């Protein structure tokens, strides 16, 4: 069974090579089909392995395959080897499954773009790298995937590179990510130094019993988390993700919502043993997560670009996932990762469908009343916003409430994490329905702009419908005990995740299902309140929005301008850095270092110029100098 593991990554690699090298001989359609087939191949193999897994007892669910030695030097032996266990199975299925739908959607969305072959080759390369990331059995191969997806993100954000701003957004993403990656690399070094291996499972085995101080684990996991903060766009490195919306919308759906940006969460879950040994790091992860969730949500309220709203919402949702893993509820984090991939993928593709219908318009103020024109997009997006808001019965409800419950029970009773999470959930419901209402209801602003919106072709709407079903049903694999379920998802992942002391039901003194139900009720009320408020402001009384903006004054301006964080970074970091380099070059390198070189050259020239005068060529001079010399020697001999 394990022998087929390599096929999961091989298919997209082939797709990349075919489209990348032979793309010019392919028609636009063929290019899209080949790319989609490649991902379908990965999906089928992963699905088949998963089904085989379900038939096995939990402790036997592990497949490994080593392909070859990549970097062998002495006792360091980095191999290209894959590990398929429940966690990587979930990830591989999400990546290839959602990826497949987005590939198919792209066939319609990218139709007529001159760079479509390049597009599909990059998309396949991304899938290849992402699958390497999730299947890697050692941290170096994982880092290959990690950097590889970053590369594809760079290439696809700047896909329309003729637009300088878009290309710049890609560059920004890569560089900001590199800062996080540096943390990842240092973590690798420390781990290798300590354990003499970089195999994920060997480290996980050795770590708990090792005689190592807490400080080591705290440092290592914090460095890893720095990598996660970059890739998963958390404070303070989130600034690249909103700009990344410059890429084609399916790219935003695949890379910047469903898969790549969740890699940070996966990284922590994959190394849950290490993180469990570093409670200090865990707290930091949870706190950064919840702050990011809240902070990004407050920005999303006021954004007018439909994709920017979704981008900030992604940052916010990723914050939830970090809160989950930070309180030790690793499986809840992965659960939300999966449901988020469904509904956020859906929302982005829906937004893409709207943008497609409006010939590239992304501003919510130019939309409105599109319900009739885009019926399928309308109802699928309704499912999406309901799922992300957390309406009971949809996938987001189950995963979000599992996180909130974990946060609540973590500190044995009331927890501000939970409160912040509930508030954020309310804000989320508000801004997502704001987006929904402003797109599909109210005044049809597009009429003035002269657009003639149309529903997207079925190659685009079918993926929407499928994702809508997943957004509804995806949650039913993890129904909590409080609602009469058994949370199969949690039990499926349990064998490969660490148990963090004091998590979940066990942590609460008297685990009470009643309490859990009560909390669910609270969050549902808050969410419904948020939705109602959005309805009032954007449907019932459209003038209310401007009034509110006026009244909120400063707060509105801060949110609208994203708290001026980009500007602050530019002023405090980018500019001084450039000035330093410039100054160092013009003053130090040219004046001091090279000045010394040229100076000594000139000095030698001057000295030799002076000495040269001795060689006057006049016999009298030479004769008198010889005479002088003879006299000196005689005197010397005499004294001696």
């Amino acid at each position, binding site marked *: 069974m394990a022998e087929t593991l390599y096929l999961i990554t091989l298919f997209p690699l082939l797709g990349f090579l075919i489209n990348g090298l032979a793309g010019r001989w392919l028609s636009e359609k063929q290019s899209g089909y080949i790319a989609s087939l490649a991902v379908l191949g990965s999906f089928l193999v992963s699905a088949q392995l998963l089904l085989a897994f379900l038939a096995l007892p939990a402790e036997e669910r592990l497949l490994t395959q080593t392909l*070859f*030695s*990549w*970097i*062998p*030097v*002495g*006792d*360091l032996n980095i191999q290209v080897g894959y590990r398929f266990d429940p966690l990587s199975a979930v990830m591989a299925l999400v990546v290839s499954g959602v990826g497949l739908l987005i590939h198919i959607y792209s066939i319609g969305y990218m139709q007529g773009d001159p760079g479509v072959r390049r597009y599909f080759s990059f998309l396949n390369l991304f899938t290849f790298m992402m699958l390497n990331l999730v299947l890697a059995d050692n941290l*170096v191969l994982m*880092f*290959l995937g990690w*950097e*590889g997806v970053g*590369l594809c993100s*760079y290439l696809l954000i*700047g896909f329309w*590179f*003729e*637009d*300088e701003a878009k*290309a*710049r957004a890609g*560059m920004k993403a*890569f*560089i900001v990510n*590199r*800062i996080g*990656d*540096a943390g990842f*690399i*240092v973590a*690798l*070094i*420390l781990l*290798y*130094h300590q354990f*003499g291996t970089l195999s994920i499972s060997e480290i996980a085995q050795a770590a708990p019993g090792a005689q190592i101080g807490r400080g080591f684990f705290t440092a290592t996991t914090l460095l890893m988390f720095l990598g996660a903060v970059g890739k998963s766009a958390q404070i303070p490195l989130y600034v690249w993700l909103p700009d990344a919306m410059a890429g084609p919308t399916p790219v935003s759906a695949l890379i910047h919502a469903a898969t790549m940006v969740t890699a940070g969460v996966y990284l922590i879950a994959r190394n849950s043993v290490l993180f469990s040994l570093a409670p200090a790091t865990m707290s930091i992860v949870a706190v950064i997560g919840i702050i990011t969730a809240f902070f990004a949500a407050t920005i999303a309220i006021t954004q007018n670009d439909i994709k920017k709203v979704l981008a900030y919402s992604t940052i916010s949702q990723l914050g939830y996932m970090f809160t989950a893993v930070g309180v030790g509820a690793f499986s809840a984090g992965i659960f939300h990762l999966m449901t988020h991939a469904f509904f956020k993928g859906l929302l982005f593709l829906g937004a893409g469908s709207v943008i497609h219908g409006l010939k590239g318009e992304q501003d919510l103020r130019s939309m409105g009343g599109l319900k009739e024109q885009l019926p399928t997009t309308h109802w699928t997006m309704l499912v999406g916003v309901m799922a992300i808001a957390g309406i009971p019965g949809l996938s987001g409800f189950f995963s979000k409430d599992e996180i909130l419950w974990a946060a609540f029970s973590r500190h044995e009773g009331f927890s501000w994490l939970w409160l912040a999470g509930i508030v954020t959930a309310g804000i989320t419901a508000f801004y997502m329905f704001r987006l929904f209402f402003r797109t599909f209801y109210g005044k049809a602003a597009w009429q003035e702009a002269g657009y003639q919106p149309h529903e997207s072709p079925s190659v685009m709407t079918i993926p929407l419908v499928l994702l809508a079903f997943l957004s509804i049903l995806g949650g039913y694999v993890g129904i909590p005990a409080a609602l009469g379920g058994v949370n199969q998802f949690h039990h499926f992942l349990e064998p490969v995740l660490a148990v963090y002391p004091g998590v979940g039901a066990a942590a609460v003194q008297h685990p009470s299902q009643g309490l859990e139900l009560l909390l669910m009720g609270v969050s549902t009320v808050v969410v419904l309140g948020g939705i109602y408020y959005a309805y009032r402001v954007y449907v019932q009384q459209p003038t209310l929005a401007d009034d509110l903006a006026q009244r909120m004054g400063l707060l509105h301006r801060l949110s609208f301008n994203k708290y001026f964080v980009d500007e602050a970074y530019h002023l405090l970091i980018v500019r001084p850095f*450039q000035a*330093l*380099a*410039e100054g*160092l*070059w013009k003053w130090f*390198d040219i004046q001091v*270092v*090279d000045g010394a*070189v040229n100076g000594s*050259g000139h000095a030698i020239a001057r000295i030799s110029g002076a000495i040269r005068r001795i060689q006057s060529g006049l016999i009298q001079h030479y004769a008198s100098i010889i005479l002088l010399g003879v006299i000196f020697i005689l005197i010397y001999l005499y004294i001696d």
Partner: protein
Amino acid sequence: MDWLAQHLLTLIIFLPTVGAGVILLLREAQRGLIRRVALGTSLVTFVLSYFIFKGFEAGDAFQYVEQVPWIPNFGISYQVGIDGISLLLVMLTTFITPITILSAFNAVRQRVKGFMVALLVMETAMLGVFAALDIFLFYIFWEAMLIPMYFIIGVWGGENRLYASIKFVLFTMLGSLLMLVAIFALYSQGNAQLEYYTTSYLELTTLKLSPMTQTWMFLAFALSFAIKVPLFPFHTWLPDAHVEAPTPGSVILAAILLKMGGYGFLRYCLPLFPEAAVRFTPLIVVLAVVGIIYGALMAMVQPDMKKLVAYSSVSHLGFVVLGIFALSLQSVSGGIIQMVNHGLSTGALFLLVGMIYERTHTRQIADYGGLAGLMPRYAAVFLIVTLASIGLPGLNGFVGEFLIIVGSFNTQPVAAIVAVVGVILSAIYLLWLVHRVFFGQPAVALSGIGETGKGPKLPDLTSREWAVMLPVLGMVIILGVYPQPFLKRIEPSVTTLVNTYWQATAPAGIDQADVEIIDENKGNK
């Protein structure tokens, strides 16, 4: 056949000079033939060297050794041989030279004969440096490299070529003259201890030198190598030399000549003067790390593409020196692999800059923009090479950087972590270069119809240019994905080097068993 096998190394070293001799017999007007002879000679040299690579048996002993008495009265002999370390650099030389010659078909259109002769003589000298096992022979080859390079910059160079070529020669001479003094001192020490005169490398490495003697000799050798690398602050000759040199000159300079420094440290400084090396390691490591950061910062603000690439070399070679002086199996292996990597990717960058310069006659980054729309294939190749240089996993640069950083941490933890910052910086300056040159709307001066009225002003890569780039791209990927054949060949030599070093420098009173423990702790990690 046996004879051939026994003299294969000598054949490889001198075949290029034979080719140069043939070219001398031709007339300048027979350009086509001159070029074909030059390319053919270098290709045959490469094929022969590939047999050495194939036939090289894993082990730390020197192989393909040949020894012929040369000036027996002084104990000087012609002695050559290679171990894993020199093997890779010999291969790099024979691989890059034909590519350079092919690129010169376009880049050099005047005095072709002289240029090809200079390049081929250069190849002999470079191969000689890597293969010499006699310190006198080594010095001869070392100095012999200077002459063709001086002419390549001084005759075929840019506007300011005289300043650059003289700066290059003076800088290098300063180092090598001190090295010559140290060689004489070593020679007399050898006579004093062995009671006969010898210049054989293998015999000289057995000498026991007093700490004071080691210090002076180490400094003399190290200065020479530090200038070649170039180690900060001895680097200012490099940007000037690169900017003025013609494309093939820059390629040879970056790809191979700079490696002489790293090779010199490995072959001479460490084995001959281990105790002095210990003393100076902190200083050299600091300079290497400063070079990594400093070179990257300089590269960031250069307005000229060639200068940018030149300063990036300072940064990348800082990694190499760090790896070498961290003295662990992984870090030194990484350093050697990184020398090869740098040769490939920086060589390729200079080739690519040369290709675009031939079309536009400007190297100022500000003159460019939107090139990706006009020359998509050129852009793709440029991007791949850039990514290799940035150290993206899957391409060659990562393997070297990773080994250096992981390997250095045991002995030089702070330096290793600072070096990681260099990894961030390299992404900044190179991607920013790519951004300014390739993205955005095409600069007005670049688009449109060519002067002849036919075809675009900037045609994409020609088939000859593909022929230049494809081998490099191939190696960039092979070394990135499957470096094993290369790593395996250097491992025994590096193991011996590292072990000898830690044994020689172990404090007195510690017996062999303890030394082995030290090896395990420091050497093998």
